[in-house]
């Protein structure tokens, strides 16, 4: 027992550093596997994609270095230009639509009503459905003999007509994304203190005016968040365009999106170099959007 009293202080002093070292050791051990995954499958591919974009690269691998040739190819390629145009048009229309619909739904759900949880779940549900299933259902509803034509009249194949195909994807995705947007707006609405409304109610301000004068401006951070996050999501549109056109981006390139271009350059034309450079262009566009958001919102929020 005398040995015990003697030995306790000694390891105690050493254990301060020992414990720190041990804690750090376990810390590294815990993050080792996740960091390896991020390193090998995220950070390395980022560098590798940029590298590949400077090569002529086929299905069998590297052919030869071509400098910035792949980027010039992109710039001159009418199909790439069309893909960028489609993607931008799609994004510019779909995002405000998702925001308006999501905000409307959030406002309605946020009103003190019975069955709130039920309605919230019901409106959110389409957001959970897989793109493949929802697109199959849309193809069915929007075909020439489909339910939509039965309701609105006419005999248009919505995905088969170049003037409506992209806008049909806009409608489809606005429907399925609005539920998620709604959840973000709901969270933001609930963070607005109620005394703000009470003050405006005392002033006798109407519901409509209260919304435009008070609620809408107070939601500014939420607007920015949703705009950027869903704007980035919209730039990546692919699944629906791929499925409705069978990967062709048709009819007549009307549903050809930027990511579809990347896919087809790689897997149809085996131009991995050009595909990688298109990926880099998309990445830069997304990065710019994110930087703009950070700068405007000016907070350490991560999107």
């Amino acid at each position, binding site marked *: 027992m005398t040995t015990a009293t003697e030995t306790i202080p000694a390891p105690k002093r050493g254990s301060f550093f020992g414990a720190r070292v041990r804690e750090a050791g376990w810390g590294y051990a815990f993050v080792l596997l996740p960091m390896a995954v991020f390193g090998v499958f995220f950070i390395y591919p980022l560098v590798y*994609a940029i590298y590949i974009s400077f090569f002529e690269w086929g299905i069998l691998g590297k052919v030869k270095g071509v400098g910035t040739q792949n980027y010039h190819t992109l710039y001159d390629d009418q199909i790439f230009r069309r893909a960028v145009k489609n993607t931008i048009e799609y994004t510019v229309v779909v995002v405000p639509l998702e925001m308006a619909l999501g905000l409307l739904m959030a406002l309605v759900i946020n009103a003190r*009503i019975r069955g709130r949880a039920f309605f919230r779940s019901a409106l*959110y549900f389409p957001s959970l459905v897989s793109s493949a299933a929802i697109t199959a259902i849309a193809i069915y509803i929007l075909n020439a003999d489909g339910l939509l034509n039965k309701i609105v009249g006419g005999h248009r194949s919505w995905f088969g007509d170049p003037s409506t195909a992209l806008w049909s994807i806009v409608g489809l995705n606005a429907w399925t994304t609005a539920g998620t947007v709604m959840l973000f707006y709901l969270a933001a609405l609930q963070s607005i203190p109620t005394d703000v409304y009470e003050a405006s109610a005392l002033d006798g301000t109407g519901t409509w005016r209260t919304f435009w004068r008070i609620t809408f401006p107070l939601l500014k951070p939420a607007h920015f968040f949703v705009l950027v996050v869903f704007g980035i999501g919209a730039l990546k549109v692919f699944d629906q365009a791929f499925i409705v056109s069978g990967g062709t981006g048709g009819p007549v390139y009307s549903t050809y999106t930027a*990511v579809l271009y990347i896919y087809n350059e790689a897997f149809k034309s085996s131009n*991995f170099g050009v595909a*990688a450079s298109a990926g880099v262009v998309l990445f830069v566009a997304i990065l710019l959007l994110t930087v703009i958001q950070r700068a405007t919102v000016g907070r350490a*929020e991560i999107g």
Partner: protein
Amino acid sequence: MLQTSVAAAEPLIPHRARSEVARRLVVYLLLVAIALLFFTPFIWSLSTSFKTLPETVYYNLIPHPFTAAAWKSVWTEYDFKRYALNSLFLAVTVTVINLFLASLGGYAFARLRFPGRELLFLLVLGTLMIPDQLRLIPVFVMLTNWHLIGNFSGYILINLVTAVNLFFMRQYFLTIPKDFEEAAKLDGAGYFKTFWRVMLPLAGPAIAALAILQFQGTWNDFFWPLILFGQGNEHLYTMQLGLAQFTLTYQTQWPLLMAGSILAILPILVIFLIFQRFFIAGVTAAGIKG
């Protein structure tokens, strides 16, 4: 008659209350309209899946004759059973591994002190900015070189853990009081044991939310299965990839196509009906981020 009774009742209802009633009426009407708009496609698809092909030219909602032939057909004659099993296998595997690695890393970043922690964490957050569409080409080239295209391991490998999941777990661990770990330490529990036996059970709600969202994400994934299995590996087709292929091949076989689509939705619908709270809490937390 009606007018007079309304007029008579009017003075009894204060002005504010009347406008409140009108407001609620508008709210309910809007809700019902949106809900109908949102659910008509699903109900219509469900109805069609129980019809015969000739009957799909009519627009009746109740199938007549009512037949489950399309359902039986996609499950037995076509490959939807295999698609479902493939998807189930991938979704479960990816979810379990994500849960483990995201918790492990999330816990370390939340609680353990080690040099370079902040820098490493910044790196993790940085990966959030790298889109899958950029990783597509390099990852495909890497997996091809390693002969991991044409089996499930490539898919699992690139989906072992995501930054979103790790971040989500870290944020949750930060909210757990330190007392629990200190108590465990006094009991002589080591770091891993403290994590495994004390912290992980405490993170139950976060783990449930993450499990549900990750399962849904993998089950619904179309992009990576298309890239990794879509180049001639039909035995690896997942539910979504198989369904997309089926859509392109049997575009006008509506009962079959709708049965397949509902089948692809069904597991998520069931999970959602049981765990809707976790879904909604998870999406909001993962987006807003503490």
